């Protein structure tokens, strides 16, 4: 019996790839910022130092989402 095509999708799987890649960093950045907000609420005098560390954390976590954006361009 011939195989039956039940459904056909068209489009670019790179878009789905990026969507999946953005889940982790989205949650990650939310965690970093929420912890910073909690810590600033506990000790407001450290706000400057904590803010700098927050930007560092965001940069590292977001790197993965951006590499996810770049992979379709690398792999054709």
């Amino acid at each position, binding site marked *: 019996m011939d195989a039956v095509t039940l459904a056909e999708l068209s489009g670019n799987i790179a878009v789905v790839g990026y969507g999946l890649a953005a889940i982790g960093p989205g949650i990650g950045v939310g965690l970093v910022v929420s912890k910073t907000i909690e810590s600033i609420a506990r000790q407001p005098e450290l706000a400057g130092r904590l803010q*700098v560390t927050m*930007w*560092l954390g*965001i*940069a*590292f976590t*977001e*790197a993965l989402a*951006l*590499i996810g*954006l*770049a992979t379709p*361009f690398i792999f054709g």
Partner: protein
Amino acid sequence: MSLFLAEGGEFAPPTIYEFYPEVFLFEGTPFAINRIMMIRLIVMTLLIILFLLWTRKFNQAVKTGNVVPGRFQLLGEMALNFVRKSIAHDQLGEKDGERFLPLLTTIFFMVLGMNITGIIPFANIAGTSVIGIPLVLAAAAYVTFIYAGVKRHGLKFFKNSLFPSGVPVYFYALVTPIEFLSTFILRPVTLALRLLMNMIAGHLLLVLCFSATHFFFFQADGLFKAFGAGTFIFGFAFTLFEILVSVLQAYVFTLLTTVYIQLALADEH
């Protein structure tokens, strides 16, 4: 019913070829100049002129002993002190901060200047949205933090970063490749890619918003024209967001370079 039918031409969303505009000077040679290269050359010239004017103002103030700065001088002092105090001195301390300050100031202002052209009306594309500038700046940061580590610790720098102390010997087979990958490969790659992809994504979204507005207002029929107002407002809001992203990416690049230098200079306990 024809109010809801969209007629007119097809909508062509932006593609990656946005970043390869046509060459208009010196075609075929390695010095081919297209719109993006022209923007980079103009921004470079403007930055050089800006810093020449600032240093002239600072020298004048030192010579005349004038302690009250004028507006232009104040702007220069604020900008340069931002990198000096809150990035270099904060992370590296006074002595090392001064050592690496020229590189950090160059990185900050170059990234900021090239990023901000993404929202300037006749340029409309960031100089950092093609791989050249992010790659060169990431390579400069890479060479600098390795130089800083080797200068401070000699060749033990490589041993200390690849074989961290306090790890049982049999774990080194697992830890060392991961450390090598994360310190010597991922750091420069993510520095360059973070900047590049932020600018590419921002530019593509802005082009999408404004070309959609153009399409809805001029080529769609009936009630679809109303969508044009929505995409225009979104484009405006996103332009403001893009300004924030431009400044933030400059800050993050400089801050990360400083942190890598600090980690390279840190003594093992």
